[in-house]
């Protein structure tokens, strides 16, 4: 049935739909997680969704587009790695200072004492 609705691996639709779902899940994780690591996971999900979209579009457009899309997604992966490293370093720094990493309790910018 899914085949009928979305086609199969040789159609664009399933990739895009999957990416949309991944993105939505990433959004949910981002908003609800109180732990920065959970937050990070949401972001990773969204990045992956974008990457999947990009590569899929490229493949269904042309050979050149496919190659360019892959280069782009390569860069995104590299950036994601960097971002993860910095995020983890931040988590560590916060942990060192506050002995906890609950995002809901870190509200100094809102004028509240931690």
């Amino acid at each position, binding site marked *: 049935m899914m085949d009928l609705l979305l086609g199969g691996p040789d159609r*664009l639709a399933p990739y895009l739909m999957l990416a949309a779902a991944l993105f939505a899940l990433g959004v949910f994780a981002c908003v*609800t997680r109180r732990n920065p690591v959970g937050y990070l996971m949401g972001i990773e999900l969204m990045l992956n969704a974008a990457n999947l979209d990009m590569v899929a579009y490229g493949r269904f457009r042309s050979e050149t587009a496919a190659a360019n899309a892959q280069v782009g997604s390569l860069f995104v992966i590299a950036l994601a790695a960097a971002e993860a490293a910095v995020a983890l370093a931040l988590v560590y720094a916060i942990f060192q200072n506050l002995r906890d990493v609950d995002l809901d309790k870190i509200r100094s910018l809102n004028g509240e004492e931690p």
Partner: protein
Amino acid sequence: MNVATLIFWPLVAITLVGAAGAAFARNLVYAALSLGASLAGIAGLYFFLQAEYIAVIQMIVYVGGILILILFGVMFSRDIQGTSSQSSWSAKLLGGLASLAALVSLGKLSWTISQKEGLGLLATRSPTSSWVGQISSSSTTHLGDLLMGPFLVPFLVIAVLLTVVLIAALGLVRKDAP
């Protein structure tokens, strides 16, 4: 229903379920592990898209690197079980609304675009079962040419960025860091 399809749909399911686990699981370790499954699923899908190099990189960097980092990060949490740091209903409502909006909008967008697939908006060439699973070496070579050619400067910038980020991360976690 051919072999490709038989592999394809379970991969999609793994990806989706893994992502759902990452988003919903109360226990952070479970969440991280299911995220790994999801990332691996995506790597599998890259094979279908003839992006073998990306697939491999995805496995190495994401599943092998970032996921480990995340697992390290989980260890800083006091409440790995997620029993006491339950997010409030308002946050859940907000998250639900936002993700619903994202799903609806992106889904609608994806639907529209994939319907226009045959209208010349995108190339109609599609991966056929004949080449699924075959590793095309030309793709990787071509990628290398691109990275060393037109994309050289961004490539170098990314390299520099990674270096800077690593140093910065080291700086952040120093003992006497602020």
